[in-house]
């Protein structure tokens, strides 16, 4: 007896119009504005010389002791009568990449001007770092500049893009973001409006804005306190934001989960009074076989009976994977990427109570394997097992991507780890990571780890297994539920901070931009290769 709640996008837009702003204030209404509107605003701002409140970020290249101005900086410098050069000359070489300083009284239309270092001129792609350093340096430059201006309370910031407007837009929005949902109005900082200085590359800037804002949305969802972001709230937030963009969002309730026999999700959710949900989002930009995105959406994770320490529980941010997937959907939908994407996200809360999950429980997975729960804190795998099997059985995807954090405590925050069974998917994802600056590092998906999660005489699979390498074992566990090309992204290490343009200590929303960029690349490649291919559309399932 399946019972399904279906929200059609049109209705929802009407009904929840009021709530949209409450839930998505960090994204703001500007997302729906067209580029034209923005431009007009930009112009209006240029003429309206409000003085102190609007700031400008300019970059300077720095090589050893010498500074070189970017063309836009040079122009500003000339208009101000060489003031910027003057400031730079007074400065002994303290301006390093990642640092910015703010000067005032340069040109009349801007109050404070942040002079920010771009590092070496045009370093290009670095093989050892696996990073496009030109773009990353722009990101670091803009991030440092925007943050310096935000500290001063600028309401409007124009950014000189230094040749990479996309990267500049991303960094500007990421750096300006604050989580102030629960600050009373007097303490709140003014929301910063960001503009591209000059008109060159406006289109790229707008794309970058989408990437940046989507990641900010993921950060917002992740950072929301668990009582304000229960599974239902999370699904509501997804509906409110994604439906107006043309994404089909469905939320299945407990009865449906029971009818589908998703014992993994139900067992994890059993301890909590919040009902579990299964969120499905569909973006049909094309009619190809879809890409399946799966994630674990634990709005709060206390670890179950294997209770976490207070410190670990506080910074858990277990919903990060789901938030990243939603952010990817948002990016793809706004940019109208011609790709068919399905997202399957089980949402629940793990708490301790009389009927919560116990170590030693055995759960049947949808594909017939039996999973033994040895450590209730490794519950993401149980959720994902159900989501992956359901998603693959339902949609026959060409590529499966799942985002989760399988280790209870994080590793280093340099990069997210990926596991994959396909060389070219790995290469594509890492290339995307090199461009977005949010890199991925591959870890082994070896039989060695598979043996460690299987070596029990009584059951098929153990969620902890016998070895010590938690992340690798988790990937090996999930491998049992996947056929075909698969990319598993483990976000254990990247829940917070990690770059100059991300606020340290706050949720990072990583690697949303990388996955979105990778999918956009895939769509582009598909278009090139099979532009004539017939589409065998599998009908959308709304049951």
């Amino acid at each position: 007896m399946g019972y399904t709640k279906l929200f059609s996008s049109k209705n929802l837009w009407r009904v929840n119009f009021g709530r949209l702003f409450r839930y998505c204030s960090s994204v703001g209404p500007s997302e729906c504005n067209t580029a034209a509107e923005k431009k007009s605003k930009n112009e209006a701002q240029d003429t309206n010389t409000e003085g102190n409140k609007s700031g400008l970020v300019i970059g300077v290249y720095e090589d050893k002791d010498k500074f070189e101005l970017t063309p836009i900086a040079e122009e500003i410098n000339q208009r101000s009568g060489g003031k910027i050069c003057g400031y730079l000359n007074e400065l002994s070489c303290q301006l390093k990449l990642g640092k910015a300083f703010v000067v005032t009284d340069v040109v009349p239309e801007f109050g404070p001007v942040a002079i920010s270092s771009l590092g070496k001129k045009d370093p290009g792609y670095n093989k050892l770092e696996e990073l496009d350093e030109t773009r990353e340096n722009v990101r670091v430059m803009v991030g440092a500049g925007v943050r310096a201006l935000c500290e001063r309370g600028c309401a409007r910031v124009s950014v000189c893009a230094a040749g990479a407007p996309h990267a500049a837009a991303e960094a500007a929005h990421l750096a300006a973001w604050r989580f102030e949902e629960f600050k009373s109005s007097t303490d709140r900082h003014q929301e910063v409006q960001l503009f591209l200085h000059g008109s060159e590359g406006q289109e790229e800037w707008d794309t970058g804005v989408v990437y940046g804002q989507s990641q900010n949305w993921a950060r917002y969802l992740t950072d929301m306190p668990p009582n304000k972001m229960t599974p239902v709230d999370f699904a509501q937030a997804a509906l409110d934001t994604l439906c107006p963009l043309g994404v089909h969002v469905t939320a299945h309730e407990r009865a449906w989960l029971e009818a589908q026999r998703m014992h993994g999700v139900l067992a994890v959710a059993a301890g909590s009074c919040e009902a579990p949900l299964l969120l499905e989002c569909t973006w049909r930009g094309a009619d190809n076989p879809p890409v399946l995105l799966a994630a674990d959406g634990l709005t709060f994770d206390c670890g179950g009976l294997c209770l976490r320490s207070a410190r670990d529980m506080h910074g858990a941010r277990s919903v990060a994977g789901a938030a990243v997937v939603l952010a990817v959907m948002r990016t793809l939908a706004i940019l109208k990427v011609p790709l068919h994407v399905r997202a399957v996200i089980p949402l629940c809360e793990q708490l301790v109570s009389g009927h919560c999950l116990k170590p030693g429980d055995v759960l049947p997975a949808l594909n017939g394997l039996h999973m033994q729960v040895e450590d209730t804190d490794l519950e993401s795998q149980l959720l994902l097992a159900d989501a992956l099997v359901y998603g693959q059985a339902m949609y026959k995807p060409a590529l499966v991507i799942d985002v989760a954090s399988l280790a209870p405590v994080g590793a280093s925050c340099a990069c997210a780890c990926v596991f994959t069974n396909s060389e070219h998917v790995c290469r594509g994802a890492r290339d995307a990571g090199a461009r977005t600056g949010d890199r991925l590092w591959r870890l082994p998906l070896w039989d060695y780890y598979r043996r460690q999660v299987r070596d029990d005489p009584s059951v098929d699979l153990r969620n902890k297994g016998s070895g010590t390498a938690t992340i690798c074992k988790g990937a090996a566990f999930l491998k049992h539920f996947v056929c075909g090309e698969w990319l598993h992204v483990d976000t254990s290490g990247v829940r917070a901070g990690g770059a100059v343009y991300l606020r340290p200590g706050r949720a990072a929303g990583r690697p949303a931009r990388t996955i979105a960029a990778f999918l956009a690349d895939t769509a582009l490649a598909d278009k090139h290769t099979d532009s004539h291919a017939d589409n065998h559309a599998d009908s959308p399932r709304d049951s």
Partner: protein
Amino acid sequence: MFHYRNSIRCIRCISQFKIPRSDCVSYGPPKRVNDPKLCAIRDKGLVLGVYFNENVKDDGAILTASGQKYDKQCGGKLWNQLKLTPIPRLGEYRIFYDLDSTYGYVAVAGLGTECLSFNTIEQLDESKEAIRIAAGIGARALQKFKPSVIHVESFGNAEAAAEGATLSTWKFQEYKSPSNKEIVPNAEIELFDDCDFYGWKIGALKAASQNLARYLQEMPPNYLNPTSFAKIAVELLCELNINVEIKTQGWAASHEMGGFVAIGKSSIQPPLYVEISYFGADECTRPIVLIGKGVTFDSGSLDLKPMRDLMLMKGDMAGAACVLAITRAAAILKLPVNIRGILPLCELMPSGRCPKFGDVISNAHGKSIHIRVPSREGRLLIADSLVYARNYWPKAILDIGTMSKELIYSLGGAACACYTNSEELFCYVSTASSQTGDRIWRMPLWKYYEERIKDCETADVANTSRDDFGDSANCAAFLKQFVCDSKWVHFDTYNVAYTRGHDFPYLQRGMTGRPTRTVIEMMFQLLADSKL
């Protein structure tokens, strides 16, 4: 003289690794009189293989070529008996007794399917790995019967078979009294029915080198102190025409090896700086420098390690043991390369003179080092040696050491971490590791980590970051500060130094001596490249 006696004893023990001095060079199996009627005591074992492909419908099992030959010899008895039970799969074996007059017992080990080959996801030549497992399991099963000789068939690759059999039958039992019943004598392992003696010998040598590294790791730390380690180096290497130079603390101090001196003075055992040089090529060839961390016991000093970790810290000289074994193998194989091995040997103990939290030391490179955590001492030794290695104008520098515990939780015992600044060196390492089954995994050597270890107000660099996480990568970033422009590979082997015996069927519980075989194989690979 207590210590003197101890060191004499351990040198006596090492005799199993010494090369018998003889003019007679054999180019084949030793010939023996074979009279079937006289073989009253049949204490010979034989290891054969059987393939089993589950996907073949009727009968997926087939004996290897040598197996079929032997089966014919004994009149089909082997095949008849084997069919009675399910065919052994990969990692399983069956033993049959009294099949013919030569062998008292025959082990048939499963090889899995015949269709194994190189697997890109595993980064492993799976056919070789299967042979290693089969040979290892078969030989170990027969070892219980205390045979005088175990004959192992080649399974199609004599080198891998020799590696598996030699590794699996080795056990550290020096300190059991000779009357102890549990002692299993090391059986002679010989090739059966194959002509690839060259491959067999290479495989056996690689495995024996790994066993030497295991032996040194297993040696109890009161017997194996820096001095006795140096004596063993002299004992084992000089006979192969490898120069061994042993330098003292004073020499190190005069060469501004701040880290080595600071760590070495923490113990009453004098630290020694051992350099071994093997000249296989002409004097114009630039050497390959191997650096091995040789802390014979690492207590962590003031940052004392917990009891569980301390029990394994006798093996903290894994790097030095590997370098010694690799150089020795290169000399026995007469590889045309020049190798300089650098072994900083010392002991880290808590004492009045041990390194303290917050100490600042300097070394010849000119960078001052802030000791943020004194138990991360290996990287200080390696840093000094990396700077010293500049004097040799090396082709490439490899350093091996047990550096950071974090790897246990990120990679487990599957592979050791590899950091390198040279793409082509990594290709060689990766190819070599896929051949030997002792795999490595590349980890990021990024500026991100460099910034973390440079984030230090007292000195230029700190030996670890403020964060708890990413210690292995921090260590690599730290070492990168002391590499000038050489091609350089850093192996962090903390996670693979010890095994509980479940990781590989051919490695019993104890110290592993990894990644000795991989580096020896890599030396082979480097020979082919003239550019490097």
